């Protein structure tokens, strides 16, 4: 092992250092929450920058760990998202009720990130499983982090129970795969290109396990409950980072490992996509709690993401990553505004947003743009993301699916507009008062907003992603 090896693994190695710091700080410095938050954010910022330094492609540990330019990009997307989550959670972490627990929060959060990086970098299904569990188990803790709330406890328990089942199913699938191939080394499996009924079952079990994390219908039922019960930063993390990691992993496995058997996974994903979009939309229609609302909205978005899988080639992968990036930023912006509101007032119902624009025009505008981005309205980035996803599906001749998807996009526009309506149109005697946001919060929103506004127009980004495939 050389320095170069360490550098190739810089995402994981440096993250470990950061986790160590949290552990130590949590043990020693219990009193100064603010300093802890600041140091963590500063540290993570540097860490995030380090992630952007280019490195060579390599397979380490006998192929257990793989890193290449694409994976670096995926990790960077996740780490930027996590950075934004950290920024947004600063106010929450600093609040007095978390006396002495901020370290634990960061510790668990960063551990899950670590798990996700392993999922992405996995060259072996064993590694993937390890990463998956590392990414899941602490999340259950995070979900019930607000231990004084019953809902939070409930969220954690629900998540754990269902995720345990899902990972058992995934494992069962893996075990079948092992039986077929005799190895879990991904590259070897890809070379063998076998086909059998058992193989199909294995793939479906695998997809279901990851589909659970991705909240695909009918594996999604935990989502809304957990999103609603968890503390807001955790919900944010769920909806963007955790989902992103699952999506990326699914993509890497399906496109890289099972690239010769695409027909085996396309039809299940087709079905799941339709179900996810429709059911997610139908549930989202009448939600009043913003967190729950965003939960269903994110379910729907996951359904859209599956459209990219219809294309087996570069277009498919590119549009998936591209869309995830845009979806992440848009969703983070929505959550950013929401977290400011929740921090200041503790209100998270849609009705509380009535008349929001009159008191907080800037935040209202950010919310508007990010909701439009989620809905896929130009000129913000969401339009491009969706359009390209649809292009990917259409390139495979799936026009019916595209049509269903676009209709669903229209329905989703309906409920996004409900939020817009609440903020801009509805009148309110006692609107949320004008809120002063902190530097961290502004920074978080600034990053998201820049992304939302610029990504669509900077076509180089899309081309860059495509170049990595």
């Amino acid at each position: 092992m050389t320095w170069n090896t360490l550098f190739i693994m810089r995402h994981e190695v440096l993250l470990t250092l950061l986790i160590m710091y949290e552990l130590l700080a949590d043990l020693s410095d219990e009193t100064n929450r603010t300093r802890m938050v600041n140091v963590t954010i500063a540290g993570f910022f540097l860490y995030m920058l380090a992630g952007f330094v280019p490195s060579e492609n390599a397979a380490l540990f006998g192929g257990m760990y793989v890193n290449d330019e694409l994976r670096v990009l995926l990790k960077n997307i996740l780490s930027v998202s996590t950075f934004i989550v950290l920024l947004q959670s600063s106010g929450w972490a600093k609040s007095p009720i978390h006396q002495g627990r901020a370290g634990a929060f960061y510790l668990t959060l960063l551990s899950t990130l670590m798990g996700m990086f392993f999922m992405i970098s996995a060259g072996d299904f064993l590694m993937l499983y390890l990463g998956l569990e590392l990414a899941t188990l602490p999340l259950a803790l995070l979900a019930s982090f607000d231990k004084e709330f019953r809902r939070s406890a409930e969220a954690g328990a629900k998540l754990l129970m269902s995720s345990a089942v899902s990972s058992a199913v995934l494992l069962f699938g893996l075990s079948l795969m092992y039986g077929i191939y005799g190895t879990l080394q991904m590259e070897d499996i890809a070379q063998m290109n076998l086909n059998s009924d058992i193989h199909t079952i294995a793939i479906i079990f695998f997809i279901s396990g990851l589909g659970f994390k991705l909240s695909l219908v009918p594996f999604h039922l935990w989502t809304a409950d957990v999103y609603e019960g968890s503390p807001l930063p955790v919900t944010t993390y769920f909806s963007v980072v955790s989902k992103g990691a699952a999506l990326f992993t699914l993509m890497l496995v399906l496109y890289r490992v099972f690239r010769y058997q695409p027909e085996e996974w396309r039809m299940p994903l087709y079905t799941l996509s339709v179900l996810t979009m429709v059911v997610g939309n139908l549930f989202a229609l009448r939600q009043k709690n913003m967190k729950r609302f965003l939960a269903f909205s994110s379910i729907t978005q996951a359904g859209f993401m599956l459209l990219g899988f219809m294309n087996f080639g570069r277009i498919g992968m590119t549009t998936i990553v591209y869309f995830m990036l845009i979806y992440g930023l848009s969703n983070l912006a929505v959550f950013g505004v929401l977290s400011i509101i929740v921090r200041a007032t503790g209100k998270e119902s849609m009705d509380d947003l009535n008349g929001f624009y009159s008191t907080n025009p800037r935040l209202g505008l950010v919310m508007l743009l990010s909701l439009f981005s989620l809905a896929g309205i130009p000129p913000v980035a969401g339009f491009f993301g969706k359009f390209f996803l649809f292009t990917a599906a259409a390139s495979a001749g799936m026009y019916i699916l595209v049509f269903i998807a676009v209709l669903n996009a229209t329905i989703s526009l309906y409920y996004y507009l409900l939020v817009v309506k609440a903020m801009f149109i509805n009148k309110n005697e006692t609107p949320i008062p004008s809120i002063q946001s902190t530097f961290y919060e502004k920074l978080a929103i600034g990053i998201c907003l820049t992304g939302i506004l610029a990504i669509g127009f900077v076509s180089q980004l899309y081309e860059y992603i495509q170049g990595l495939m």
Partner: protein
Amino acid sequence: MDFSFTILILALPLFSFALLGLTSKSLKADLAGYAGTTSLLVITVLSYLAAWRYFGGGDAEAGFGTTIAMNYLWLNFTDTLQIHIGILLDSLSIMMLVVITTVSLMVHIYSLGYMKGEKGFQRYYAFLSLFTFSMLGLVVATNIFQMYIFWELVGVSSYLLIGFYYERPSAVAASKKAFIVTRFADLGFLIGILMLSFSTGTFDFDALTSPTGPVISQPAGSLFMGLSVTTWAMLFIFMGGAGKSAMFPLHIWLPDAMEGPTPVSALIHAATMVVAGVYLVARLFPIYAMSAPEALDVISYIGSFTSLFAAVIACTQLDIKRVLAYSTLSQIGYMMVALGVSGYGGEAGLGYMASLFHLFTHAFFKALLFLGAGSVIHAVHSNMMTDMGGLRKYMPVTHVTFLIACLTIAGLPPLSGFFSKDEILVAAFEHNKIIFAVQWLVAGITAFYMFRLYFNIFWNRTPEYHHAPHESPVTMTLPLSFLAVASVFAGFVPFHELVTSDGKAFETSFHVLVALPSIAVALVGIGLAYIMYFKQNERPTKLAASISGIYTAAFHKFYIDEIYIFITKGIIFQFISRPVAWFDRHIVDGTMNLIGNTTVAASVVIRRLQSGKVQLYIWFFASGVLLLTLYMLLQ
């Protein structure tokens, strides 16, 4: 010959309209009136000049040619179907120019007195200018589409002038009715134009009406319900003409149109616009005569029926303007009959000549009648015959001129009406005896109701007037006198040399066999009127009672209005429009809403899936996996 100056005939009234319309109230009322009148005077002079040059420069024996004074491309549909705006001068349009400008000038002068002090005086003159412009544009049209354009403009000026007293609901209703009925007719006109132009490929009158041109000489083409396309087209076009000329059953707007100021009635609804239908048929006469003789028969029947029908109604009306309106209907019926019974070229074209001759004389004497009636109304402040009587003492000039007009329309020699009507009867006699008989009868009825009117106004009992009626100012009596003179002498214009179907002069002869009976029947009519209305007596009431069925029906204009109201209000509004509106709200829009509501309802229904029980979640998860597996394996 240079006719380029004729462009001024169109430009001046348009300019005057724009000027008066834009300056509106900022211009002093008198000034506006004078400005409008002056411009019209100039136009009149120019028209006479044009007539003088045209008729003076041509040779009646060889026939007067057609001159295109100007022709600008206005809009091109295709390479051949193009709308030009131009000026076509031939004997027909020159004759119309003279009539229109003359009557219009008289009306302009007359209105200076009649409308004095009215609110919106400037507006009135602006509209008059607009009307004059449109009407002149119509008659000088070089192609059928230009004619249609101005046809519509004439319609709208008529609308604006009928509704001049816009605060009066009846005027608003009348103007609306006039516009919509004529618009309906224009739809026919338009369809006719479309059909004609596509079977012929041109809009130009020159090409259309040339007897040797491709249009007339081409074979009739395919038949539809036994008639050729050309015939159908010509019938549709006649529908437009019938609307404008208020032929039965499209006549209902005209009596109502009397809601407008009386000079307007004189100008538009007696002398000029309503004869546009006659002009239209005359303009396209070669096609009618040679390619669509069936259409011509239809025209004669409708004309004949209208003239009888309107004459009967006129006998019962009490509003003097309405009597005149029905009389106008009746007289236009005469003109239509004449066209209907005419042939093309030479002697056969007698009806054509007679029709236009009658148009010419009718313009003068009917304008005179209306203006006279206006003068009376101006004095009495009422339209109703029952409020009048014995006015001869108070209004001598009006009386005399009115009497002249009545005698003229009754067709007594040597007044102009006699000549023109006589020619029509001759033409009818030679063509169709039944029509002749009807027209002969109508001549008698005409004499009767005109003198009924005359006696009731100027003789009979004298009611108690609140203010003693007085003679109208000179601005009004001057036009009356002028028109009276014109009515007397217009019959001596040698029409058979000037305005004929093929442009060539022909000889007419005096038919004693036709003339004498017509004079006789007129005298009988006058005599009857004298007996019944000269002095107040019981005879009219008794007569009315003895034929009460017919009388009541005629008094109610044979209930045509009611039928129309039933069709519009009862059928179109209630049975089409209202259901359409309902259908749109509840079915079409309802479907859209239903889609939305169903989605929301579905959302409520499936919420049980999210039961909050983690074991159910796991159950769904597991069954999802299994179903998916099953699906893939069975595939």
